[in-house]
């Protein structure tokens, strides 16, 4: 009997010993850290593609959300009124549909950028020129991501820089500090790009339309960097930050495709495609049937060529026909937008029409009036919508600028920021049907609940963020 037990014990031991290393199996479903370490050159190249791809993936949602906050569009998703009320009424709620717009998703890409920068800096598999190219692109996108974070919540502020620990509760710093960091990132990147030769070792999947396609990829990207710098510096200028407008004008001068009078569609775009694995333009007329134009955009402007190109009122754009008005949570819109007709229509990141408007704004009254008029007549045609055909003061000039920007840059993520930076949030909240539903205009998109909770759990180092429970209320307009 003892022999029998010995036999069992022996058999069991032999069986397990034989199988001991069988448990050591790898996970074949995802790329691995070890795999990336084995070929850092390829890994960094794919990481940069990942950064651009993630940026592209976030852009339609960003334009959509900014469009709701900025009264460009209603997202009238049937069966879910929260897609309207989240931005229009309940924007202070940390669990509303608008909460956390351009927050977690942007920091997700900032984490991608952080890790890619780390690998690019540390690896020996890249030449100095290649490293400069990679860092120039990564830092530019770091700035672009931060820009979207801060324009979505200028009153709250943002986290400026990540660390190795993704769980760390990092300080939230104010708007001006973030804008300064964006500018310095763009300038560093521009310097890096200056030593990056004429080509990148990785693909840059942006589309340069019209004159924005320059002689080589590095030059094209450098021009994008400068155009974006012009946008950010212009924003600083409008916020009263010293030197902002001058810096914007200086940056514009460094954009070879900048023109105040022509090539308005020239610029940098993100592409979409129906190819396998690729994504589609999520705010196109074809793919998003729930997006409706806010009456502030379409009322009284039907003669403007920009209206006629972008509003699907059934009379002008034969490729975009809105079947019927839609009502949700008590508000009605008659037309869908047709800014992006098909699901593969590229989305502009920045284009010359904006640069021309920046030039006008940075020049101010009266110097900028001519440029503003050029944009209006070139883009809006003879019957362009105006407030003051000939602005007679800086105040009138700004009013006129806002109208031209809202039509020229409709659905490009600007209107909310524009009205806010000039102190006109209340105008966004003025539409009668919105007022009847208790809609108000937010000044900032609140942080998502998760951010508030995580910070509260850590004892809110640096103070309770605005909008989180126990923090100051986010200001809005009635």
């Amino acid at each position, binding site marked *: 009997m003892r022999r029998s037990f010995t036999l069992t014990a022996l058999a069991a031991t032999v069986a397990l010993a034989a199988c001991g290393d069988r448990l050591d199996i790898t996970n074949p479903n995802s790329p691995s850290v070890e795999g990336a370490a084995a070929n850092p050159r390829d890994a960094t190249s794919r990481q940069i593609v990942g950064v651009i791809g993630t940026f592209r993936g976030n852009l339609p949602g960003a334009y959509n959300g900014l469009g709701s906050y900025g009264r460009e569009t209603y997202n009238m998703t049937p069966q879910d009124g929260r897609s309207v009320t989240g931005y229009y009424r309940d924007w202070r709620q940390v669990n509303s549909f608008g909460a956390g717009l351009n927050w977690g998703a942007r920091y997700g890409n900032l984490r991608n950028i952080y890790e890619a920068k780390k690998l690019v800096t540390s690896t020996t598999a890249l030449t100095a020129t290649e490293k400069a190219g990679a860092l120039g692109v990564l830092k530019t996108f770091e700035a672009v991501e931060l820009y979207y974070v801060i324009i979505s919540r200028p009153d709250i502020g943002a986290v400026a820089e990540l660390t190795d620990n993704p769980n760390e509760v990092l300080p939230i710093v104010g708007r001006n500090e973030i804008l300064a960091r964006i500018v310095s990132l763009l300038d560093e990147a521009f310097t890096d790009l200056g030593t990056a030769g004429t080509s990148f070792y990785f*693909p840059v*999947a942006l589309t340069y339309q019209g004159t924005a396609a320059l002689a080589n990829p590095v030059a094209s990207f450098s021009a994008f960097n400068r155009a974006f710098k012009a946008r950010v510096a212009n924003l600083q200028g409008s916020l009263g930050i010293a030197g902002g407008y001058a810096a914007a004008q200086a940056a514009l001068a460094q954009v070879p495709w900048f023109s105040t009078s022509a090539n308005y569609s020239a610029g940098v775009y993100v592409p979409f495609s129906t190819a396998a694995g690729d994504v589609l333009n999520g705010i196109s007329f074809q793919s998003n049937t729930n997006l409706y134009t806010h009456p502030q955009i379409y009322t009284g402007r039907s003669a403007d060529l920009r209206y006629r190109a972008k509003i699907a009122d059934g009379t002008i754009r034969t490729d975009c026909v809105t079947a019927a008005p839609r009502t949700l949570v008590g508000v009605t819109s008659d037309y869908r937008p047709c800014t992006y007709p098909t699901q593969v229509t590229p989305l502009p990141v920045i284009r010359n029409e904006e640069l021309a408007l920046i030039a006008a704004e940075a020049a101010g009254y009266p110097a900028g009036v001519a440029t503003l008029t050029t944009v209006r007549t070139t883009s809006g045609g003879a019957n362009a919508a105006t407030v003051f055909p000939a602005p007679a003061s800086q105040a009138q000039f700004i009013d006129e600028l806002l109208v031209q920007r809202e039509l020229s840059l409709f659905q490009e993520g600007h209107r909310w920021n524009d009205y806010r930076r000039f102190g006109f949030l209340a105008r966004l909240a003025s539409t009668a049907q919105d007022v009847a539903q208790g809609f108000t205009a937010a000044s900032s998109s609140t942080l998502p609940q998760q951010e508030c909770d995580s910070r509260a759990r850590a004892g809110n180092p640096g103070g309770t963020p605005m909008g989180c429970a126990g923090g100051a209320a986010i200001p809005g307009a009635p």
Partner: protein
Amino acid sequence: MGRHVVWAAALAAVVLAPVPALAQTREVTGRVTRAVGGAPVPEASISEVGGRGVARTNPDGRFTITVGAGDVRLQVRAIGYRRAEVAVAGGQSDIAITLQEDPFKLEEVVTTGQATTLEKRAATTAVASVSSEEIVRAPSQAVEQALQGKVLGATISMNSGSPGGGGQVQIRGVTSILGNGQPLFVVDGVIIDNSQISSGSNTVQGAAGRTAATGIGSSQDALVNRLADLNPNEIESVEVLKSAAATAIYGSRATNGVVVIRTKRGSQGAPRFNLSGRVGTQDAYRLLGTRQFETVQEIIDLPYGNGADGAAVLNQLYPSGNIPFTRDYLQEFYDNRTPAFEVNANYGGGTASTQWFVTATQRREQGTAPNTGASLSTLRLNVDQAFGSAWRFSAGANITRNLLNRGLSNNDNTCTSPVYCFAYTPGAVNLDSIAPNGLYVRNPFNNGGVITASSNPFETFEYLEYSEDVLRPNVNGSLDYTAVQTAKHRVSFRLSGGLDNVNQYGNIFSPSFLQYEGNDGFFGRVAKTNVNTLNYNGQLVGTWGYAFQPGANLTLSGGAAYEQQRTELVRTRARGLLPGAEITSQGTQDQFNQITEFRDQALFANAQLQFWQERITLAGGVRADRSSANGDRDKFYVFPRVSGSVRFPNLGSTLSEIKLRGGWGNTGNRPNYGNRDILLAAGPIIGGSPSLTIPGALGNPTIKPENLQEIEAGTDILFANGRVQFEGTVYDRTITDLLLQPATIPSGGITNIVVNGGKLRNRGVELGLNIVPVATNAVTWNSRFMWQRNVQTIDSLDPTIPRFPVLGSFGAAFGRNFITPPVDVNGERVKPRTTWIWGNAPIVLDANGTALRTLPFGSFIVPPTLGAGETLVFRDTVVGDANPDFQMFFNNSIQLSRFTVGFTIDWRKGGDVVNLTRTLWDEGGTSRDYEDPVESGKYNNRGSDQSFDFGSLPSGYTQGSFRYDGWAGGSDARAYVEDGSYVRFRDITLSYDAPEGFARKFGARSFRVNLQARNPFVFSDYWSFDPEFNNFGATNLNRFIDLAPFPAVRQFFLSFDLGF
């Protein structure tokens, strides 16, 4: 594993034991009768102890057996009776044997170890068992359905009325938030696959995002768990191990309980052939009805009835502007009455050394929707072979083909799920008709007419091809060797194992001309899903049994086990198909490929001691597991268990026997696949370039199994001469090291991390009362009441883990389960329940932002007067509890002469359900009670227990508009939280056993006719089909979401059983 095979071969190679020579024989005749009443016992099996003779009684209870020449002992067994052993003297040739009934199956054995069992009478833990008779009482879509209302301690629910099954078994509550939540199903020693994998219908329905390759399938695709492939006719018995003191023999896969299923095997005696045929029909019931529309204007005024085409079509159809009657699309659609059928044949028999059993079944179940159904074909062969007295070999092989055509149901964004689509389609157009252009009439509503999300389900179900075809071979085998067999000692070894291979092939093809096609820019699509799962397990056990005194024995066993499960999933989709093409190479392709694999090893040892005339039983054991899923793959996690029982038998006639039992056990639930791995992620493809990104969830290389500890105590009491049995059990289980995937701080740039942290606690009571009210020759009545209640709380969460909603819900607008640390309720700190439904509700805050009070439903319509500084917000709060107050089952079997009646009643009290189906119908303005008045400012939504008084309500509100507007775009989730109580008959059967003479006319031995019904009656105030349905299929939590499911069905069958 290769070594295991070598061992098996080595052991098998020595199977050459000599067969003993035949001794002199004689014949003994006899009769077996019932102890009470003296009725003959047919089909009893008689065997000679230690000999080879076997016999079976005829309908008169008589038998003839060939036995050895000297004094012999006969063992007699019959289903429902205690076994008996009688001595037959050398000269005796005729014997009368009486059998005591065993209505409570106390002689049944229960599993206590890898190779050890105990009689139920002495069991140390509460065990639920279900016999084959109860399982096949009425035909079922899947085994779970047959078990509903029959297992004390289990909550079993089906996910929809779709043909082919899809259900869930939860034993003693939820024991995991994110880990596996399903019990382990062990069929003849093989751990079988019970996963649920989509066959790709999301590519049409678009319930989840479908732009990426991962969006081809979704968890909302009315999934079938693979238990559906098991043929209930093959099952001999189902034993449900609930307590950790019992399940710990399965170590780190056992926190959710273990369901041990044994299939039918051959027995000694002449071969018997049985044939049964069933034919029946199904009926969609509790359909939703529809609002009656009277004028065209009413429809045009609906939010989704005013499409340009809608108005034009209506004005053409109804020039007068009046609508004479409203179509009930659900009635028209779910109207397939094609008969369902089932044929089952089995053939079994054997000698003392060889027994075999073959079962074959063909079942074709019809769905109530057009072109839906499920067809199951199975063949099983079980063989047992003894080689001499020392060796015994058992094997089973089974092959199943399960072909499902379930149609589309559940959540949807393309108007292809009928219950969803009809919610937005007023019944004013005959959708089941062909337009002059030869196509089905287009659905003009919900902005129909242009390329949007509208569609005609009649057309869709006519032309869409959607099938899930499963071919599943499964084999098992065991080899037993008895090394020592003396009066006191028995030493044996068992090598056993088997494999289960599932090949699931899903196909969905949607032709380009269907109305919804093109709404994502592509016309025509096809998706193919291939799933190959291979599970196998093997173990070697040695056992020493030592009978050291009469009525006292010790059993020790030990051994090792190896288990492996691997699933590879390949999905391919093509959209924008070329004309006429139906394969994935003919359009824009997306592919998805995923492998999951687990490998587990275990060492175990068990001890079992009985003494004091077997009145005291003690059992204990330990199992050490390691797994490829754990962070540390070399580490063994140890799971011990102890339990005991003490019986006080023969106490008298009123109180016959009392047993007290108790146990403690420790089991585990291993991490999910990939939890341990720190990986990068495949990022988006842009410009044709694949990319690398940081994953949303960060793996954890120190992840370990969840740990469950349970204390159970109970008693089994026999009363009234053994005619009444009471069973009571209380348990308290604590689960620590919960596998959680908490959200990290969003500004850190990743979404989740995987950790062990947090503690759940389940406490419950299970009561059973088994009664034999009548037991005479003419009438036997067995009755069984079961009552269960389980309450689950989250006792703690690691301080680093924020509260988080459980995945798989529709957010705060409709309610979801929340995992949260203790919360303050009315100023008191309470441990939250996992089953609480958290949703938005209007709350008044004071100037400091502190919540003052929750307002009644309707506060978004009739805004309350607020005090100075107060603000009204909506906020996540507890709006319901999905946990029933209790569940009660009532089982009966009454035999009256040749008639038998059996039925199961299931009563669930409480348990809230979120009725999204009703939201859809309210939003579409089509719900049946939409226009009912809201009486005198009061609104009563959830049965009789809640009503809200508003004083003055703005005029014009009806039930439907009040509910929907009160919901306020999701700001008050309470609008659609409903009480899910029900009382229902799960099954009813009425059988008639024809006289033998009648059976003989067919050349048969027996003939039985049955009328059977499944779910014939449901009594519930619940508004939608069935409160047990769930949109997300089998999920640990969030199991209360009713969203446009395939409607409930009841089935009626006539069946004939012939025995030859």
